[in-house]
Each structure stands twice: as structure tokens, then as C-alpha cells.
């Protein structure tokens, strides 16, 4: 684990609230991304699993036995916790076991989860608009690449273009899509709010 990450862990272990918020700001987006893409879930599951992951990360870091040097990076640890929680959720679902606690998620957590999903919706709306505006020849290469999953040389053969030109075309098409996304700032949301919620409620882990 890198030095600055070890220092962040040490600050969390001493109970520094600012360090926890820093951690959430940094890793909220990737954790939510992984949960969402793994579970293809709705807002209810997202917020519940996110809360579980949040607790598990902090519990793990605060353990006396936690050894930063054993981890390549802090993101490797957080990714591992997230992965485990997702697996747990699948196992519980398979056995029809109750996975979550009885307490309903707080309004703040619910709002934050919905915010993340709304963000995805907004991203989808912008991309849909960009796709419609994209010239057919660019849409065509995207379709061949990502739906038909053709390698570049096969696309070239099909289109009658050399490979580098196909790559250029894909690159430009993605650039157009990226430009559409830049209209929306992807901001960390749920974990920041979760952190605030837990800190405000004075919940002990």
C-alpha cells in the first residue's frame, strides 16, 4: 500500500472523521459502479448493499489486525470488500435468506442511492441524444465493435477500410460520446452522504 494510503488508514484507525470522508469521496464512485454493474439492481438493493459495504470497509480498516503492508493498494482492499459483499448478497438470495438488517435505510441513504441512479439516467439520456446525432458511419463502427464484437481487422475487411482508419473512426465516435458526457459532472454522492449520515448519527461501528 502506498505511503499516503497508509497514512489515510492510520487516520481512520484513530477515528478521524475527515479521513473517513476523504476515503468515501475517493472510492464512492467505483464501489457504486461495481455494485450496480454486478447486481443490475434497483435503488432499494443499491442503497442497502452500499451501506453494507461502507460498514465492512470501515470495520476492516479499524481492526487492530489490519496490516496495510499486506495489501498492494487501498483500492485492492476496498475492491475485495465490495466483491465479498456482492457474493454474500448473491448467496443469500440463492438461499432466500434474509441478507439485510430490519432497520429501513435512512432517508439520506435512500436519496443518495437514487441520486446515483438518476445520474446514470442522465448519462443515458445524454448518450442517447449523442448517438442519435452521430453520423451513421460512426454509429456503424460502434455497433460492429461493441455489439458484434468484431476485432478491428475484421471490421476493416467488412467496411473495405484499412485497420488504422477503422481505429480512427472508432476513436472519433467515442470522442463524440465522451463530449456528450462531459456535460454532466460525475460527482461522488452516496458515500459522502452516507459518511455524513453516520457521523451525524454518531453510529459506532
Amino acid at each position, binding site marked *: 500500500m502506498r505511503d499516503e494510503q497508509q497514512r489515510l488508514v492510520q487516520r481512520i484507525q484513530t477515528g478521524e472523521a475527515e479521513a473517513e470522508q476523504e476515503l468515501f469521496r475517493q472510492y464512492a464512485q467505483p*464501489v457504486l459502479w461495481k455494485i450496480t454493474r454486478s447486481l443490475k439492481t434497483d435503488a432499494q438493493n443499491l442503497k442497502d448493499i452500499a451501506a453494507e459495504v461502507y460498514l465492512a470497509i470501515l470495520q476492516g480498516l479499524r481492526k487492530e489486525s489490519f496490516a496495510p503492508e499486506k495489501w498492494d493498494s487501498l483500492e485492492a482492499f476496498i*475492491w475485495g470488500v465490495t466483491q465479498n459483499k456482492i457474493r454474500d448478497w448473491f448467496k443469500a438470495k440463492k438461499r432466500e435468506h434474509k441478507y439485510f438488517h430490519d432497520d429501513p435505510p435512512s432517508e439520506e441513504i435512500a436519496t443518495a442511492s437514487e441520486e446515483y441512479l438518476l445520474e446514470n439516467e442522465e*448519462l443515458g439520456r445524454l*448518450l442517447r441524444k449523442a448517438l442519435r446525432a452521430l453520423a451513421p458511419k460512426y*454509429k456503424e463502427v*460502434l*455497433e460492429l465493435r*461493441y455489439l458484434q464484437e468484431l476485432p478491428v481487422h475484421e471490421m476493416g475487411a467488412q467496411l473495405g477500410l484499412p485497420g488504422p482508419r477503422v481505429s480512427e*473512426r472508432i476513436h472519433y465516435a467515442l470522442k463524440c460520446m465522451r463530449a456528450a458526457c462531459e456535460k454532466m459532472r460525475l460527482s461522488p454522492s452516496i458515500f459522502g452522504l452516507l459518511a455524513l449520515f453516520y457521523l451525524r448519527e454518531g453510529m459506532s461501528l
Partner: protein
Amino acid sequence: MTCEMTHREQRLDDFLLRKLSEPEAEAFEIHVFGCADCLQELRMREQMIMLMQEERATVSAAIPRLAKPREGFLRKIADFFSLRPNVWIYAGVAATLLVGFFIAQLLRRQEPPDIYAANFVELPHLESRVGQAFRSGDFPLSVISPQIGENFTGEIFFRWEIKKDEKKFSGPLELKILDNRENLVHTATVESGQYNLKENLAPGIYYWTLDYQGETLYVGKFFVKKPKK
């Protein structure tokens, strides 16, 4: 973009298209957890793929027509423009400049309308004196040509008469021609009662005077028009 992963594009696509082994995919996900650029790119591409799947029927319908290989020179032109979308902008700017250049050339050949019109603005203080023979009564001058406001396109013939029995005036008259900015464009000393101006004047309004010993005896005006081609 600040991510410096080697073969990043390939790695992103391999991950999205599930072409990575499980350990490779895990390692890449861990990288994504620490790389905001890759995360954003993945979110964008995942959403895009999802949308394209939704619209697959529409997109696929367009493919046979688009995928049809173009032939020879036309294909080269089409490819050139399709891969360089900015070329259209450059071509547009170049075309505009070219058209502008030709228009400027055409206008240069014509008389600038604003300047041409300005040459016909009257000069008020001379205008009020046009047609008057000064010292009337003791100077029997009769102007025959040009008539006041007469139009010319070529040479101009000036002619006037002084009574034969007039003894007070002996000697030449000074003929002056002024443009409407009061610039002296021509002057001549005339012994007889006529003068032929062969010089081509620019189109406009002109005032002409006959002076005797520094005193203006007559003010007239005429127009020079652009000759018809």
C-alpha cells in the same frame, strides 16, 4: 486524460467484451477503483453499449447499406472526408474566402457606388450662385454652352458671347472647372469666346466659372456621366 496504462484502449474494450481472464479482469477492476479516468470511460461505454443494444434493430437495419463497399475514386474521397470531419469546416472557410475574393475582384472593376454617388452631391455655396451673371448690368455676358445642368459623357464645349460694342473688357477670361469638393480640376485662359475641353473628367457634378481680372463673372454647372458601354 491522465491514465497512463499501456494499451489502455485495448484493455478497456477487452474488459467490456469479457475477453479478459478472471485474474486479469480483477486486476483491471482494482485499477479502475483507483483511476477516475478509466471509471468514467467505462461508465460511458457501458451505457453506450446498453443503449445500442436497445436500438440494435434500427442500427442493424442501416448496416447493409452502409457496409456496402464503395468503389475506386469515390470511395477514397468518401473515406477522406469521413475520417477527417473537420475538413468540411476547412473547406467551408476556404470556399467562403474564395467567393469573397471573386466578389471583391468584381467590385473593384465597378465604380464604387458610394464614391460614385458622392461625386454628385451639390456644393451649396456654389449652387446658390449657379446661372448668375455677376456685375449684371455692366457686363453683358451671355453663356451659350454648357447649359446649366447639361449632361456630358465625353468632351465638353464651352461657349459664351460678349457684346461686341463692350469696351470695358479687353483681354482674356479665366475658365475654371471645379469638382463638388471645390478642387480645381481644370483651368484655361481663353481669348475667344469658346473652349473645347478634351480631358475626360470623372463622373460627377462640376461647377465652372468665368473670371475676369480675378473677379468671377459667371458660375455654371454641368454633369459628367459614365459613358455607356
